[in-house]
């Protein structure tokens, strides 16, 4: 284990802020695009802004240990308000901004927030909607004034006004504030993050200063992150990854956090900033690759030829060059030419020209997607982590990157595999507790500090890399006792650009079946090129030609699954394409877009029955929730299809 000693006096985020003012005072700390221009703040300016906010909170009467909920998209002011809360001895609790009011109400109630700091009117409305049930809430502060003029401001304040009040009244509260900053230690809570939880209510994960800062230090050193780096802060602020990247590592190293103008401009902003350190879940990389491919389909013949030729070169030698393996001079020359003509411009359009370290995690990434980026010379790596570990459990060192592992244990982290195959870890980042939930804390973290991840996996012999199979509880048995690993099959399916989501069933049954969600962008584009008219997702999903394509994909996956003797029973015998996209608003997915298997199985039980009783068609009616929270129903008649499977017995014989 890495040393237990505090890192000098730097045992809180406010302390790191003070250090950054000393060391990097005139360097950009934050940038945000507003009104079409990138505005920026140096560390010195940032410290002033944060201090004013903290003074303002003091004037409003914030107490030690208060919880301050923070809701909104990534904006410097909201990041600052988290640090301001910490200065006052309070605990910031970032919430998912796209959660419906109901979900927010649970978290706000559970943490007992006295202060809620939000981005704009939309969030104010949501909080006001549930406020009468939440007597704890005393002050709501908002950052964006727009549309707020008519509101009753008795408990509502413009964040800017609060900071102004703080500045004006600094003499009254300054001493007290400085005292509170000084008393912050390793063991004070740094942040509380609610896990979206695939089952049950969200749990508040308490992370101490030690958790956050030691993890930030270790991981920054691992990838040699430094003050000159740039990141784009676009992932939900409530997610532990964003907190570690945009707060932990940013304050540890002093690098610059760039906030996009809006969610819709993310890609443009990415291109303009050109981050050097970038994290994205696989679906972002997938989406970008899909849009590149679509653009190439529409490009002229010469351009397409050029692209195909040099991409073939890149696939052959790109990853080796990136990993520093020997490559012939001729190939290096070819690659250099390709870089000039294709990879360079392409990376520039994607916003990846400057990337030094890129990470993906959360889901398995398709090997061809992963290789695509690496062959372009983008150092994309995988990591494995969770909120309870303050992100990092394992990660891939430079030069040892593969799409099918999640790397070696991160610095300071111990990992072992339990008898049932579950992955366990112990690290400086291991969370303190679940807030107000000692039972769950006890069942997750044993007295020696080992935490069960809930994932099944194994260490690869020879390399020492960890491979994850599936959620431990999702790895089940089929009726004949053979292994059932749905995630494994689903991931293979999802590697096809046409398939957005897949849910495989089969636990305790004699064969497997699947639900498929098509990717509206990819399939829609294909439909447009082939003159197939459609008016909705539902119509496209039911189109016979689409079903044919999906069937081909399923059968290819079956062939590939059959190769693995252990898992050959997981081939998909029958499937259907769902008439709606699985949606977090309908509870079918978590906010981080993980499928809630049980809820899906329950909600569409009629369809599952159809898949197992051999029906050719099933009519169904499904409740949906619109963006504004209203509910409605959609009806559909779905076609159920058989897919070819490779006979298990035969494949065994071949293998034998």
């Amino acid at each position, binding site marked *: 284990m890495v040393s237990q000693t505090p890192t000098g006096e730097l045992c809180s985020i406010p302390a790191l802020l003070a250090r950054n003012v000393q060391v990097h005072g005139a360097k950009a700390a934050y940038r945000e*695009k*507003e*009104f*079409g*221009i990138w505005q920026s703040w140096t560390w010195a300016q940032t410290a002033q802004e944060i201090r004013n906010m903290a003074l303002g909170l003091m004037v409003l009467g914030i107490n030690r240990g208060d919880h301050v909920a923070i809701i909104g998209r990534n904006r410097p002011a909201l990041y600052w308000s988290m640090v301001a809360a910490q200065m006052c001895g309070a605990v910031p609790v970032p919430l998912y901004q796209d959660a419906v009011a109901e979900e927010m109400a649970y978290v706000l109630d559970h943490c007992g927030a006295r202060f809620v700091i939000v981005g704009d009117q939309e969030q104010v409305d949501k909080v006001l909607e549930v406020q009468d049930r939440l007597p704890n809430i005393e002050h709501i502060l908002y950052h964006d004034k*727009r*549309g707020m*003029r*008519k509101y009753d401001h008795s408990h509502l304040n413009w964040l800017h006004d609060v900071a102004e009040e703080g500045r004006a009244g600094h003499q009254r509260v300054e001493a007290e504030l400085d005292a509170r900053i000084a008393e912050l230690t390793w063991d004070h809570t740094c942040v509380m993050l609610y896990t979206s939880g695939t089952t049950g209510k969200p749990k508040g994960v308490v992370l101490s200063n030690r958790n956050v800062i030691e993890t930030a230090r270790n991981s920054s050193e691992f990838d040699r992150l430094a003050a000159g780096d740039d990141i784009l802060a676009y992932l939900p602020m409530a997610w532990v990854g964003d907190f570690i990247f945009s707060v932990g590592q940013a304050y540890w190293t002093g690098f610059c956090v760039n906030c996009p*103008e*809006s969610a*819709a*401009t993310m890609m*443009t902003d990415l291109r303009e900033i050109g981050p050097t350190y970038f994290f994205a879940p696989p679906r972002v990389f997938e989406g970008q690759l899909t849009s590149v491919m679509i653009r190439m389909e529409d490009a002229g013949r010469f351009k397409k030829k050029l692209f195909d030729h040099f991409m073939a070169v890149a696939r052959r030698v790109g990853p080796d060059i990136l990993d520093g393996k020997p490559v012939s001079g001729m190939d290096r020359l070819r690659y250099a030419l390709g870089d000039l003509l294709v990879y360079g411009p392409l990376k520039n359009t994607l916003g990846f020209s400057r990337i030094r370290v890129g990470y993906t995690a959360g889901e398995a990434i398709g090997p061809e997607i992963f290789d695509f980026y690496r062959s372009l010379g983008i150092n994309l790596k995988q990591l494995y982590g969770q909120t309870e570990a303050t992100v990092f459990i394992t990660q891939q060192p430079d030069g040892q990157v593969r799409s099918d592992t999640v790397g070696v244990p991160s610095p300071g982290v111990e990992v072992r595999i339990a008898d049932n195959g579950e992955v366990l870890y112990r690290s400086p980042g291991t969370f303190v507790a679940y807030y107000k939930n000692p039972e769950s804390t006890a069942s997750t973290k044993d007295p020696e500090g080992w935490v069960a991840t809930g994932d099944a996996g194994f260490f690869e012999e020879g390399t020492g890399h960890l491979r994850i199979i599936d959620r431990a509880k999702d790895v089940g048995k089929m009726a004949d006792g053979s292994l059932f690993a749905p995630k494994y099959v689903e991931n293979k399916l999802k590697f096809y650009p046409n398939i957005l989501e897949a849910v495989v069933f089969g636990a305790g049954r004699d064969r497997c079946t699947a639900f498929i969600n098509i990717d509206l962008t990819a399939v829609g584009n294909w439909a447009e090129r082939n003159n197939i008219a459609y008016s909705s997702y539902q119509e496209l999903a039911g189109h016979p030609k689409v079903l044919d394509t999906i069937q081909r994909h399923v059968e290819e996956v079956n062939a590939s699954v059959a190769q693995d003797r252990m898992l050959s029973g997981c081939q998909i015998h029958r499937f259907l394409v769902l008439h709606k996209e699985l949606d977090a608003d309908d509870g079918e997915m978590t906010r981080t877009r993980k499928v809630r298997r049980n809820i899906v199985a329950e909600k569409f039980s009629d369809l599952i029955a159809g898949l197992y009783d051999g029906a050719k068609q099933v009519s169904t009616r499904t409740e949906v929730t619109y*963006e*504004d929270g209203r509910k409605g129903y959609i009806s559909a008649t779905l076609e159920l299809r058989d897919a070819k499977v490779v006979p298990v017995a035969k494949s065994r014989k071949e293998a034998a």
Partner: protein
Amino acid sequence: MTAAAQTMPAEGWTTADGRKIGPVLMEMKNITLRFGGVKAITDISFDIREGEIRAIIGPNGAGKSSMLNVISGFYVPQEGEVWFRGARRPPMKPYEVARQGIARTFQNIALFEGMSVLNNIMTGRLTMMNTNIAQQALWWGRAQREEDEHREKVEKIIDFLEIQHIRKTPVGRLPYGLKKRVELARALAAEPKLLLLDEPMAGMNVEEKEDMCRFILDVNDEFGTTIALIEHDMGVVMDLSDRVVVMDYGKKIGDGSPDDIRSNQAVIDAYLGVSHD
């Protein structure tokens, strides 16, 4: 019938949600418009007050668009007077009306398809640019500064209407709903005293309609812009407007608050298609 409108206090009033409605901004007096022998508008009078959202509704072919075109100068009525800001307006060309501070959008969208969203909205500020050709050539710096000031105003509008992501996109490539929003942005860029919207929600889906409604209300609320709009979707109008003029076959058949209009027998008849005798 028009009693409700006439009993309104001249200096204006405050609405239930706390917005100030001011004195009369524009008044149409006995307007009659003919195309050849066909009367599109017959003897219609009504006023538009500062700060209000005024709707003109009616079934298809009732003459609503003609009325809007009279206000914006695209048509010149044969009879009647148009009063704007306390003075009678002589017959004018549309561009002169625009320069008086009356901006508009079109039912079928009239944007500069070949230009980017940003440039489209910038054209909305053309009438406010003061330097002439010679000045632009000789004092490049000053012209540039002026350009920057206009750009800043335009960026505020882009932010307000949440179209940052399409700033540089050529308008021709945008879907219908966004085009409507860009057109609204261009009209707003002129900082109009009166904003005319010709069926702002035509052809939109439910979600786009809700967005547009919110933008119209916000524009009125944030900038205090007076808005006159045409719509045939009754529900939308009733939620949105302070006062409503109802037209049918070129005549005015109702004028008053949405509640008045809802209970007006002539209006009910017109919408239920009772024959005119």
